[in-house]
């Protein structure tokens, strides 16, 4: 299949007289986190926009942007703004977020051993995600809670950018979903509520949650190529992703893991 740009106009092929034209396809890239939500929005989008939505699930946080940039997909929905900015800056791309609305994920420190922040001992083992987008969030979270200090001016910090670590925390980078199964092996993990929810644990059991402002700041947004930023259909997409129905879906099905940022 081709993207919408490629075959939207000037189609003078023999199909011209076929009245029942195939619906044009919008390709949206997403990742494991948001595939259910995008699927949920698909129906609304298709009925309001008249396009068909093809959902492509990437098992990686970088490739959806690469695919978008090169035109293999038309839009993606999986990343937060800090990550988008870093991507644009580092790879010299011009991807833009659409609108101000998004969906945020609850975030916090979970532990099967400790009950409060104070109990975190010196030299504690803390699991953080190993992908850049979520590691960034984890480190920043630890920073805002006063555990560490990160070098200035780093967009996507890593362990190496930690310049102060008074409690001598042992930060261990672990694959996101695997954080949950590692909880027994570390003192605490910094991660998403959704993981707790999906693995049958209570997403609300965090020792401490990210503050609301940061949660919103890390809300995930619709991203387009710049030359596409004014297309018509994206409005419908935004609507479908951020309507009341979606709010209800998140409340009921994904309780405590996603927060509408709209």
């Amino acid at each position: 299949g081709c993207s919408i740009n490629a075959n939207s106009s000037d189609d003078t092929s023999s199909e011209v007289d076929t009245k029942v034209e195939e619906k044009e396809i919008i390709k949206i890239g997403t990742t494991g986190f948001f595939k259910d939500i995008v699927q949920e929005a698909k129906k609304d989008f298709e009925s309001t926009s008249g396009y068909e939505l093809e959902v492509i699930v990437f098992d990686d946080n970088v490739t959806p942007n690469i695919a978008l940039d090169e035109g293999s997909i038309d839009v993606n929905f999986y990343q937060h703004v800090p990550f988008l900015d870093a991507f644009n800056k580092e790879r010299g791309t011009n991807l833009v977020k659409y609108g101000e609305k998004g969906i945020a994920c609850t975030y916090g420190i979970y532990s099967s051993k400790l009950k409060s922040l104070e109990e975190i001992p010196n030299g504690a083992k803390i699991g953080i995600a190993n992908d850049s987008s979520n590691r960034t969030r984890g480190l920043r979270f630890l920073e805002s809670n006063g555990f560490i200090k990160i070098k200035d001016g780093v967009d996507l910090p890593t362990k190496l950018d930690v310049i102060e670590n008074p409690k001598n925390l042992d930060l261990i980078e672990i694959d996101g979903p695997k954080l949950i199964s590692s909880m027994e092996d570390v003192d605490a993990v910094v991660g998403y509520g959704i993981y707790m929810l999906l693995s049958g644990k209570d997403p609300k059991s965090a020792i401490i949650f990210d503050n609301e402002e940061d949660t919103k700041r890390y809300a995930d947004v619709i991203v387009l190529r710049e030359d596409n930023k004014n297309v018509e259909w994206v409005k419908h997409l935004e609507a479908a992703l951020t309507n009341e129905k979606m709010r209800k879906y998140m409340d009921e099905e994904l309780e405590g893991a996603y927060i509408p940022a709209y």
Partner: protein
Amino acid sequence: MDNNLTILNSIIWPELLKTFYMVFFSTFFSTIFGFMIAIVLSITRKDGLNPNETIYKVLNTLINVIRSFPFIILMVAIIPLTRALVGTSIGPKAAIVPLTVVVSPFIARLIESSLNEVDKGLIEAAKSFGASNLQIVFKVMIKESIPLIISSITLAIISIIGFSSMAGALGAGGLGAVALTYGYQSFNTTIMYGTVVVIIFIVQIVQATGNFLYRKLK
């Protein structure tokens, strides 16, 4: 649970087809390339039919370079190539390119060692009636080591099935990717193990076919 089974049911078929598609074509191409590389390697190696240290070293290094890349990095690094070849960098079709790139050297190595095992006496016999180097390779060395090559390709196909699960990074789908994104990342054990069971079946079939051919050809 019941719901999960329904989901599983509804995705297994299309994803199975994608897996087949990726595995089939990458096996096809990487076998061809693997053979070509292996042949050049075994001709140009020190005790080969036409030793050529430069060619051998270049190819040998190239293979090692490719095999040194973590697969995901390789996939991304060769996106320009992928796009040039298949017009897109995502989807099952695009996945064929990195799968081929990563498995070709693997097959090449396996075939190379199979070819090296061929009895030197046979090669001499072929030389004695004036067979050309290529004839020696095709009519003697490959022919004689076919059983071992069959085992190697069987091994490679199963590796391709393994690698194809990582092709999820290219949005290629397939059973492995589903097992990861819908199963593992979603903590959905029904889907996770359900798809793995299907993969087990495929692997069993591939292996049984390989063993059968091996025994047949031995």
